């Protein structure tokens, strides 16, 4: 199903529509087919105007078996198009999905346009001359269904046929069978009189440029590699596989011709430690993981704070605690990012807001880490990581530029001071092994100012704790003014952060169209917070903070600004629907 969804999305992209996707799949690799737990789905929303979310209520639902119908029917909008594979509604499948009788026959599906199609049978019939085994022929049914959908939306088959040809290059029988299934489905749509309607959606009007389809993980891997090209420093990734972060490791592992060093470590601790070592040795070092992995890295992150080495830590958040919902999205690691370490251990925290934004935030994280000589933790989430959007490829001139300066041997004159700071950034010099005359020792023990020598002096400890804090606070000078969606003042300000950007934008815009006095800002710098945030909040009567957690940013805003921020909190492993945001806005303004 994931594959079929991706293909539909690619066709949509090439056609020039805006879109957003929500892949949703079970944590088990081969969850038992036909069961409720095994349902894998792919939601895509596209249109001829700007699309912010994968959509609240789909217009069309394709259910390949009873379990899929059971799990997703309630998502479909009233009178929506429901396409089902009637062949899968066998007694066995019905009972696995917990149906007492066949909903296609017992009249229980009311209020939808039901199209019951013998997809399996027709696929097998179309492939009766194929040399493939019966089981493999049956698998082609997803392409049949895709064919029906492509017809329904007047989409060309070429994007998918070309993809099938390259994907199965070595297996001509599969190429033929899949293309036949696809075309048969398409022709079925064309020739039957079953569908009264078919949809035609014009290409979206967008900013001129070259576009591609990109997921958050793909964009982030590219941003990290781009930072390496921008600075001329090698990129090092130390990582241990974990859903939904592994794809960053996979992607970067294919960038060997960029001399990107990827190191699959024995655990997350080694992932973080190897990255700290690489940073000490002068690489742009990054470690990627999801919440449980950050928990393991905690001690090492304290070392990075103490030794003031540039390091980027990426947390692709998922539902927690513990193994939680490994394949679902959540924003519940904000507190962990801000406070999840021992000692006074301040850390710069950033959050990406859309799949394409991950590219820029990857670069931004390294820019700050190297300029201020400190670790930077970047939060994304499962929804951004796996969700795709059409992304305008930046021109060379639009890619941020920054320089990284390494300490040179001349600094040794009069004695090298590894903890002497730049007054503007409080950064210490990055003096890497291999540089003559700058030999020095660093470590996790408290150190004296300038020399970095071990010091247990009480006054020195307090001064150093305050200095490390002050350094992170200095980063505020890097934060651009917040963009306000809507009026600069009014009744209600919606404050969001991270991956909820799309849903909040969609909800707020709908409320604005209804004439409500509501605006929104979206935070990408969580520590330090944007310098103008307090003042902007002050211009609104009420503050709403929608989050996929129990209110972690809300509490931070309350504590920092003494504002009466209200929360909209959802912890279902799913992103917000725009309508949920809208309803909350209406409730607060009603």
């Amino acid at each position, binding site marked *: 199903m994931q594959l079929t969804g991706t293909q539909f999305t690619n066709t949509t992209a090439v056609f*020039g529509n805006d879109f957003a996707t929500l892949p949703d799949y079970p944590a088990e690799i081969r969850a038992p087919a036909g069961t409720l737990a095994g349902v894998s789905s792919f939601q895509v929303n596209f249109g001829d105007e700007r699309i912010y979310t994968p959509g609240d209520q789909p217009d069309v639902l394709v259910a390949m078996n009873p379990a899929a119908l059971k799990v997703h029917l309630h998502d479909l909008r009233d009178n929506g198009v429901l396409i089902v594979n009637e062949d899968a509604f066998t007694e066995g499948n019905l009972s696995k999905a917990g149906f007492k009788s066949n909903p296609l026959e017992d009249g229980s599906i009311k209020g939808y346009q039901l199209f019951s199609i013998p997809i399996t049978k027709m696929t097998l019939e179309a492939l009766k001359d194929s040399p493939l085994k019966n089981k493999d022929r049956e698998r082609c049914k997803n392409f049949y269904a895709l064919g029906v959908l492509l017809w329904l939306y007047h989409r060309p088959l070429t994007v998918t046929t070309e993809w099938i040809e390259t994907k199965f290059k070595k297996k001509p029988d599969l190429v033929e069978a899949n293309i036949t299934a696809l075309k048969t489905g398409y022709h079925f749509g064309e020739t039957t009189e079953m569908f009264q309607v078919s949809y035609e959606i014009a290409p979206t009007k967008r900013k001129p440029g070259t576009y591609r389809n990109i997921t958050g993980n793909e964009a982030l891997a590219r941003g990290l590699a781009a930072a390496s090209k921008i600075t001329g420093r090698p990129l090092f990734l130390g990582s241990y596989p974990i859903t939904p972060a592994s794809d960053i490791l996979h992607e970067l592992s294919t960038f060997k011709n960029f001399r990107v060093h990827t190191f699959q470590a024995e655990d997350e601790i080694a992932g973080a430690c190897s990255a700290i070592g690489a940073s000490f040795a002068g690489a742009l070092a990054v470690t990627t993981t999801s919440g449980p992995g950050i928990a393991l890295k905690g001690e090492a992150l304290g070392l990075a704070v103490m030794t003031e080495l540039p390091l980027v830590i990426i947390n692709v958040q998922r539902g927690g605690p513990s193994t939680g919902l490994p394949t679902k999205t959540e924003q519940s690691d904000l507190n962990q990012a801000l406070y999840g370490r021992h000692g006074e251990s301040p850390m710069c925290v950033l959050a990406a807001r859309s799949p394409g934004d991950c590219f820029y935030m990857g670069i931004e994280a390294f820019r700050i880490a190297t300029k201020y000589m400190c670790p930077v933790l970047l939060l994304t989430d499962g929804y951004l990581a796996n969700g795709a959007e059409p992304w305008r490829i930046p021109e060379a001139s639009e890619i941020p530029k920054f320089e990284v300066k390494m300490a040179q041997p001349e600094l040794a004159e009069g004695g090298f001071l590894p903890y002497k700071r730049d007054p503007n950034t409080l950064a210490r010099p990055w003096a890497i092994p291999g540089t003559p005359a700058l030999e020095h020792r660093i470590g996790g023990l408290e150190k004296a100012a300038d020399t970095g020598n071990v010091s247990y002096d009480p006054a020195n400890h307090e001064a150093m704790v305050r200095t490390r804090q002050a350094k992170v606070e200095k980063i505020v000078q890097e934060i651009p003014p917040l963009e306000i969606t809507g009026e600069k003042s009014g009744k209600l300000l919606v404050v969001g952060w991270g991956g909820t950007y799309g849903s909040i934008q969609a909800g707020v815009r709908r409320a604005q169209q209804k004439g409500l006095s509501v605006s929104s800002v979206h935070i990408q710098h969580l520590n330090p917070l944007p310098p103008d945030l307090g003042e902007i909040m002050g211009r609104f009567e009420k503050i709403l903070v929608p989050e996929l957690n129990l209110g972690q940013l809300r509490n931070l805003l309350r504590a920092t600004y003494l504002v009466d921020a209200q929360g909209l909190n959802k912890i279902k492993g799913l992103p917000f629907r725009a309508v949920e945001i809208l309803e909350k806005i209406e409730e607060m303004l009603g």
Partner: protein
Amino acid sequence: MSEEAVKLDRKDFVSDQDVRWCPGCGDYSILAQVQKVLPELGIARENFAFISGIGCSSRFPYYMNTYGFHTIHGRAPALASGVKIANPNLQVWVITGDGDGLSIGGNHLIHALRRNMDLKILLFNNEIYGLTKGQYSPTSEMGKKTKSTPMGSVDYPIQPVPLALASEATFVARTVDTNPKHLAEMLRRAADHKGSAIIEIYQNCVIFNDGAFKDVTDRSVRDDMSLILEDGKPMIFGKDSDKGIRIRGTKLEVVQLGDGVSESDLLVHNESDPDPALSMLLSRMHAPEYPVPLGVIRAIRRPAYHEMLLDQEEEAVQKKGVGEIRDLLMDSETWTVQ
């Protein structure tokens, strides 16, 4: 930098920090030998990095006038792996203790070894936790009475050398803090090795475990209780060089030279034997039944991790050309909006 240009002596490697180990600690002797051997290697001082974990022994980098990093408990091999990969020109030394390297950091140690990461790992084995004031360690003997085991420990110890062999280390040696010449020789050998090198160093903790190795290292017994391994030489030991090691079936045995046993009956040490079986047998010889083998137990050449990694990168560059930002962005289907 050309090697001739590098003329250094011991003092170049002494940092300005006061050494704070207890007087009489075995760590002093190890530090002295490292500072003696490094200047002989013809490597510029800035190309050494010393990476340690936590423990008394792990204070080592502060005393070396090289690049150094005193990291966190048990993680030095992981950190050092990142250093080596990011800058393969460096000679990277890892300093760890028996608690640091075998307890909290056991996992990182075995993985660094199996990857043939080009690190020179010095494992200071004092069979006790020094820094935390004397709890038993994973190498302490069964029944060890310490503050945390007042009635004696009830866990079986682990041994570094068999563990290193099982972890596919390509260089494994053992030496003692009280034999500076032998210690220096082992350091030289490890420095020259390309790949994962580990030396177990018996190190006396005068405060919490004094005399732990005296059965092997004491002047009065050391010739009879240790076997100095030399590559290509028969395994002979004893004050009068009158004892040897022979193999019978799958067992090693101590024999007296003379009574019908001659040198030709003895095992000849072959440190580069591709089959690790004999090194494994040697590694498990203990006092008092056997003399303890000291020296290079195994040394084989295999491509090191960073060599293979860089080869792959080179191959990718040859095939695809050096990657540019444009390539990152255009590696998928695209469409143009006018």
